[in-house]
């Protein structure tokens, strides 16, 4: 049988996308739609006292103006997590459809429904809002202080959550004689996902139910959230997810689907659409948590770790969204990545008057790796050990098992990945050569590893359902709740299905659209879980389908099932290899049989009670112009052990994209706010500097393929991992070049100027 898994099959949606025929949300919307525009608060914190809508309602073409005084008195959660039936583990419900208590500059306070865009925009400008302004706070640690503005009534000192990790006895261990103390504070910025398609959705009522077509990663979760937000039974909601123009975690949240659905219900179920502008996407969707991390390490002169402490302060912004899970994931990586017998970790997630932070590619790990891997190089410098040697000595050893997740490091992934990256970059030679440079322009190389785990078990439910429906010609439709968002999972699934069922790749038709009325339940695209989780339900469902097919083959051929096989779409007699009939003939005969007509389908749910480590590293080479305070990235190499590659070409493409995002994270991206007003300053693609074609060197992606034993296809996470280690690798390369340890990203000329001046490399 020709195996499809492991081949670089062309994307199943490549033709549709190359021709522009792939239909995204707005492409599907009828032109007779009413337009919804949201009125956002023009203060960072306070209460809406009153809203005068008279002038807005008088604008010709305006159908309705709805305000925070009209919405249901229901607070709802938005995070794209599987729901917990245990109230103690449910997501925090802390926002209404429109909010009277305004918690960030850009909060949703009113909505206009109009016949066209222009009328809606004119009406927005005519809305008069009276506020009671309150002091605001943008910094997480400031927000924790007594007397800081209270952002969410129920959370004292604005602390949404705190959690900790304790191992051994840090206080006693740090007193061991002869230890070297290394301490650092590391800051990461608020950044945005910047998928090129902004979030948007449209809604209408049909047969007493509300239908929302939306740009989301998580249709089944959004159905539940819309039901919760509107206070209606979940079965009264139908969510349809067509092709989407990227997500990266922003669309792993219920964004404007609840408000859009509610607006439709307020105009008799008419078709309404709510499309975010780019400016709104930056501020009023979700952002990545800015996290400030304090690390203290007590190290022996031989490079072994005696005691370590970590404190992380995560800036949640105005609403809980994914909340504490993000910084907690980063914190939990800390004692695992470099095991140390005596560890104290604390993390806090703190409400501030910034936009709400949610999931973004890496889920706390890019922040944790910037802090953690920067700190490792600071240790190396303090004790005079090479970054490579220190990592070889201290990284998680083969055979390590995490007590909570039961994840195991089965292979020597770190060393294999580092060896490969090192060779590609000629790291060791360059590291030595660049150590003691003088002059204004210097080069450096840097290394950083990353920790990541696939999927969310045992913190949350992990299950996946799929359905296979055989056609008369022996081809089949494949459906799953796990969504294609650009990453290529539909193609990977096709390859898996072809192999698992025993049919040619072209006979697998993936239904790319998820429709909660038609698609089996699944929680969607997140946690780099798609190929890992999907693999289980594909193998399980294919086995059921094959059994049904072979039973019918037995009836049709009178050969025993034990002597039958399905290979490449043919029913084969195993004993002599003879092809008895095609699967198409079997299916046609079965469907149209006058004695026993049956259509052949299978549908199962696989519950997955495992999770897999997915590790790798980045190597960077930079040129630093000290007087100009500029960094040029010369080379970047990422090496991943994500198990067996399902589709090498798409895997490589995934890595490129993550590296690109991480280059921006390391060097240029930051959403800035006015300290005086809390207003976002650069919420557009001109002033917010995401990586362009000109900002990249050649992106070099390499793999080490150790099959993951817990996965039926030997695969594990690759979606998020590429974004986790490049930023600290760049930072460590600057350290190698200049001897200056940078304490924050993005590493802009402003940051370099401050640090170079402090280090005496440039004079005022």
């Amino acid at each position, binding site marked *: 049988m020709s195996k499809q898994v492991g081949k*670089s099959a*062309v*994307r199943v*949606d*490549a*033709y*549709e*996308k*190359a*021709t*522009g*025929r792939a*239909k*995204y949300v*707005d*492409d599907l919307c009828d*032109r007779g739609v009413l337009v919804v525009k949201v009125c956002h608060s023009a203060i960072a914190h306070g209460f809406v006292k009153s809203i005068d809508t008279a*002038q807005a309602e008088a*604008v*010709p*073409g305006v159908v309705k103006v709805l305000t925070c005084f009209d919405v249901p008195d229901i607070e709802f959660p938005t995070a794209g997590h599987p729901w917990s039936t245990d109230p103690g583990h449910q997501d925090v419900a802390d926002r209404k459809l429109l909010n009277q208590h305004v918690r960030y500059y850009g909060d949703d306070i009113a909505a206009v429904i109009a016949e066209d865009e*222009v*009328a809606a925009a*004119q009406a927005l400008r005519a809305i008069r809002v009276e506020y009671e302004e309150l002091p605001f706070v943008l910094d997480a640690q400031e927000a924790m202080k007594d007397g800081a503005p209270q952002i969410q009534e129920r959370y004292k000192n604005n602390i949404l959550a705190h959690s900790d990790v304790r191992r051994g006895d840090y206080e006693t261990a740090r007193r061991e004689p002869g230890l070297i103390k290394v301490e650092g504070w590391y800051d990461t910025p608020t950044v945005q*996902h*910047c*998928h*090129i*398609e*902004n979030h948007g959705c449209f809604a209408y009522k049909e047969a007493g139910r509300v239908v929302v077509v939306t740009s989301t990663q998580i249709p089944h979760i959004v159905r539940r959230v819309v039901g919760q937000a509107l206070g209606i039974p979940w079965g009264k909601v139908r969510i349809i997810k067509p*092709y*989407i*123009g*990227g997500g*990266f975690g922003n669309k792993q949240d219920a964004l404007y689907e609840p408000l859009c659905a509610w607006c439709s219900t307020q105009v008799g179920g008419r078709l309404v659409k709510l*499309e975010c502008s*780019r400016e709104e996407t930056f501020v009023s969707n979700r952002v990545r948590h800015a996290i400030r991390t304090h690390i203290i390490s007590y190290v022996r002169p031989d490079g072994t770790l005696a005691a370590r402490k970590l404190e992380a302060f995560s800036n949640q912004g105005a609403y809980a969204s994914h909340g504490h899970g993000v910084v907690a994931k980063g914190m939990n990586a800390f004692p695992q990545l470099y095991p140390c017998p005596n560890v104290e970790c604390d993390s806090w997630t703190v409400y501030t008057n910034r936009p709400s932070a949610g999931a973004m590619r890496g889920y706390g790990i890019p922040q944790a790796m910037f802090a953690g891997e920067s700190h490792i190089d600071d240790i190396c410098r303090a004790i005079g050990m090479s970054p490579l040697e220190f990592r070889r000595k201290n990284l998680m050893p083969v055979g390590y098992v995490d007590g909570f997740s039961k994840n195991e490091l089965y292979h020597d992934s770190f060393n294999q990945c580092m060896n490969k990256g090192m060779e590609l970059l000629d790291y060791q030679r360059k590291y030595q050569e660049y150590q003691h440079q003088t002059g204004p322009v210097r080069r450096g190389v840097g290394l950083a590893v990353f920790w990541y785990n696939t999927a969310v078990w045992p913190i949350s439910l992990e299950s996946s359902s799929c359905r296979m429906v055989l056609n008369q010609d022996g081809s089949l439709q494949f459906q799953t709740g796990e969504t294609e968002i*650009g*990453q*290529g999972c539909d193609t990977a699934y096709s390859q898996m299905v072809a192999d698992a069922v025993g049919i040619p790749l072209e006979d697998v038709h993936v239904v790319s659209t998820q429709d909660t009325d038609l698609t089996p339940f699944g929680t969607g695209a997140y946690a780099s879980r798609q190929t890992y989780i999907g693999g289980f339900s594909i193998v399980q469902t294919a086995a059921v389908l094959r059994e049904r097919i072979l039973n019918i083959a037995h009836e049709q051929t009178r050969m025993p099932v034990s002597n039958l096989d399905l290979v490449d779409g043919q029913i084969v007699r195993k004993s002599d290899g003879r092809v008895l009939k095609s699967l198409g003939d079997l299916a046609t005969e079965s469907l149209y049989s006058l004695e026993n007509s049956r259509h052949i389908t299978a549908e199962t749910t696989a519950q997955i009670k495992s999770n897999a480590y997915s590790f790798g590293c980045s190597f960077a080479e930079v040129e630093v112009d000290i007087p100009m305070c500029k960094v040029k990235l010369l080379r970047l190499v990422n090496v991943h052990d994500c198990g067996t590659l399902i589709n090498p070409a*798409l895997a*490589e*493409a995934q890595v*490129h*994209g*993550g*590296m*690109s*995002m991480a280059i921006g994270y390391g060097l240029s991206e930051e959403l800035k706010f006015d300290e005086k007003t809390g207003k976002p300053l650069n919420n*557009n*693609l*001109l002033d917010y500097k*995401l*990586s*362009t*074609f*000109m900002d*990249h060197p*050649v*992106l070099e992606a390499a793999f080490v393929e150790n099959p993951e034993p817990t996965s039926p296809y030997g695969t594990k996470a690759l979606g998020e991992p590429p974004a986790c280690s490049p930023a600290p690798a760049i930072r460590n390369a600057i350290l190698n070049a200049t001897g200056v340890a940078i304490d924050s990203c993005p590493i802009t000329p402003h940051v370099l100027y401050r640090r170079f001046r402090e280090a005496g490399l440039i004079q005022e």
Partner: protein
Amino acid sequence: MEKHQIQYQTVRFNLNGRDVERTVDVRASLTDMLRNDFRMTSVKKGCEVGECGACTVLIDGETFNSCIYLAVWAEGKRIRTLEGILGPDGELSDVQRAFVEEAAIQCGFCTPGFILTAEEILETGKEYTDEQLRKLLSGHLCRCTGYENILRAVKKAMYRRLGKEGPQ
């Protein structure tokens, strides 16, 4: 109270080889007209202020961000969208084929714009260096691919047109 007075104007132009005319709101962008009146949905909206390049179309052979180009300016112009690149039997152009082969497509939202700019670049018949291609393509933002495979695809199509295997 603002008066909601709409002014309309009739605009005649050639769209993908066909002469067409429409009466449009004078404030409408070319993106709006192409998407709403002609259902050319390959013309994507990513920012609507000329930053991202997703709405790129060819106007008399030259690429423009159609979101910051008024619909009425289309008068007398020859406009091509991605819909007009495809062969009569649905055959992909050489550029489209290269994008497919090089895995240069992920979410697909920036793809139509990139392909049209690549068509414009290759139309010159010149051989460009990587640096030149990067600059020529830099009016487009992509968040999925890191631009790497897009560069590979454009180079592949360029060398094929030049009848070469690769850089000499």
